């Protein structure tokens, strides 16, 4: 538990600092006609990184922080963290003692998942507040409701990434393998969604990727989002947890 608190604190501060840098960088770039430059960029890349406009603070933060750090970086982080939840204990022979407690396997697994809510909430609140305050300081205030919504909608998405890690964590006994596999799966899903987005006949593949259901930039810009997306993500998360529970119940130790 101590390590999780420390890790969360470090991560929150690090991303907070990155956010501060991005906000400051926006002030430096003011006056540069960014959107004109963007027209020369490949549309697939714009799509992949959620770039819509770089001329407003919302668009700039959406592409530099949310589509990049939140969608990809934290997605990978939560997949990784969840990948180690059970596999780490299995690898270090901790499950023997843990499962000798008067606690059911499913409850143990749920408590492990619950431990991820600490970084999930700390990061969203910590970095969200940092971004809000700094944007106000440079005189480019962001709509607080849109900012909060962009953060809130990231929770179901990050939970799905964690769910993918969790399933791998109960399947594999080696923490490093489970963690890397989880990172790999989430990254491949991210790439697939970006790549097939343009091709009609393979379009369905993008629906498999959790990244398809979370687009922070439009939320930041004008608060537009599809409630069904969040519902799909939450359903997927619950499904993944159920699969992990069944697998964990059935496995030896």
């Amino acid at each position, binding site marked *: 538990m101590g390590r999780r608190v420390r890790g969360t604190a470090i991560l929150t501060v690090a991303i907070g600092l990155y956010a501060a840098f991005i906000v400051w960088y926006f002030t430096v770039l003011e006056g540069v006609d960014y959107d004109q430059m963007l027209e020369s960029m490949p549309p697939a890349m714009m799509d992949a990184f959620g770039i819509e406009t770089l001329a407003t603070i919302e668009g700039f933060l959406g592409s530099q922080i949310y589509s990049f750090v939140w969608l990809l970086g934290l997605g990978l982080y939560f997949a990784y963290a969840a990948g180690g939840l059970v596999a780490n204990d299995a690898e270090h*022979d901790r499950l023997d003692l843990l499962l*000798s*407690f*008067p*606690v059911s*396997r499913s409850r143990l697994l749920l408590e492990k998942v619950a431990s991820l809510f600490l970084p999930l909430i700390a990061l969203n609140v910590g970095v969200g507040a940092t971004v809000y305050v700094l944007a106000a300081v440079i005189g480019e205030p962001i709509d607080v409701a849109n900012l909060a919504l962009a953060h809130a909608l990231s929770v179901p998405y990050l939970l799905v990434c964690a769910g993918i890690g969790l399933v791998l964590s109960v399947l594999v006994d080696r923490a490093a393998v489970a963690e890397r596999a989880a990172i790999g799966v989430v990254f491949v899903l991210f790439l697939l969604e970006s790549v097939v987005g343009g091709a009609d006949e393979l379009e369905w593949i993008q629906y498999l990727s959790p990244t398809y259901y979370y687009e922070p930039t439009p939320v930041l810009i004008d608060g537009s989002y599809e409630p069904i997306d969040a519902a799909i993500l939450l359903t997927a998360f619950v499904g993944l947890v159920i699969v992990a529970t069944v697998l964990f119940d*059935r496995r030896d*130790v």
Partner: protein
Amino acid sequence: MGAIEVAELTKEYGSVLGVDSISFSVDEGEVFGFLGPNGAGKTTTIRTLLGLFAPTSGGATVLGADVRDERALVDAKRRIGYLPANLGFHEEVTGEQVLEYHASIKGDRRLDDLLDVFTPPIERPIREYSTGNEQMLGIVQAFMHDPDLVIMDEPTSGLDPLKQERFNEFVRCESDRGTTIFFSSHVLSEVRRVCDRVGILRDGELVGLEDVETLLDQGGKRVRVQTIDEASEALATLDGVVDVDAFADGLQFVYTGDYNALLEALASYDVREIEISEPPLEDVFMHYYGPDGSATDDPEGESSV
């Protein structure tokens, strides 16, 4: 009903047989030693008793709870203490933090008593623990909630002889308080001091279920003598001498006869060097259960001895 009842329990992993149709029961308040060489299936049996492994066939109950019934077993676990073969404590936390964590889940009614007997340096991080200290911390956590049944996998491994003696004494006291104790070991001398009864496991099969007295009587002593040739020959023919191995200036054998007779015989020769010790467990098995372990026609051994 016994504290532990095992009925035709079989556990396979793929094609590998962990334990093969073993049956035994441990009475309440009994100290039961589960004896066998490494790899015999002791840990497999123990893990099955705690619901960590699902049995392939057959079954078991602990404190009346079916090991396949998670709900019942979780309930029973409040009254069970467990010392696994590998403790896996986090390296960076202190012993005290480990115990606080365990206390928050299981309770710590007897913690202070235990820390008087076993003395791991609880203010230090586990990283700095010796194997013996870690094992002591493991023993403390197994007993801290005053369980009715304690299951231990090789509890004395890593303990120095003094701590081992303290452990034995402690187990006897616990047994007097009515706690049922089940522990595995591969060292005969360890179980003989504290156990009421012993089950012997070999290659996944229960080859014997004995009270300790019987086991020791059958076990005999291993004698290694350096002496002149004619003495060696004479000793080899003595009653109760088995498993004779001759070497250059003496011989080694297992002696199961009357000790006085052996000493008399030895006194009449020029003995240059002698060593009398407990025979290794393997030898006890070999001699009393046959090299293939098939000598027992009564492996079920349901009867309490």
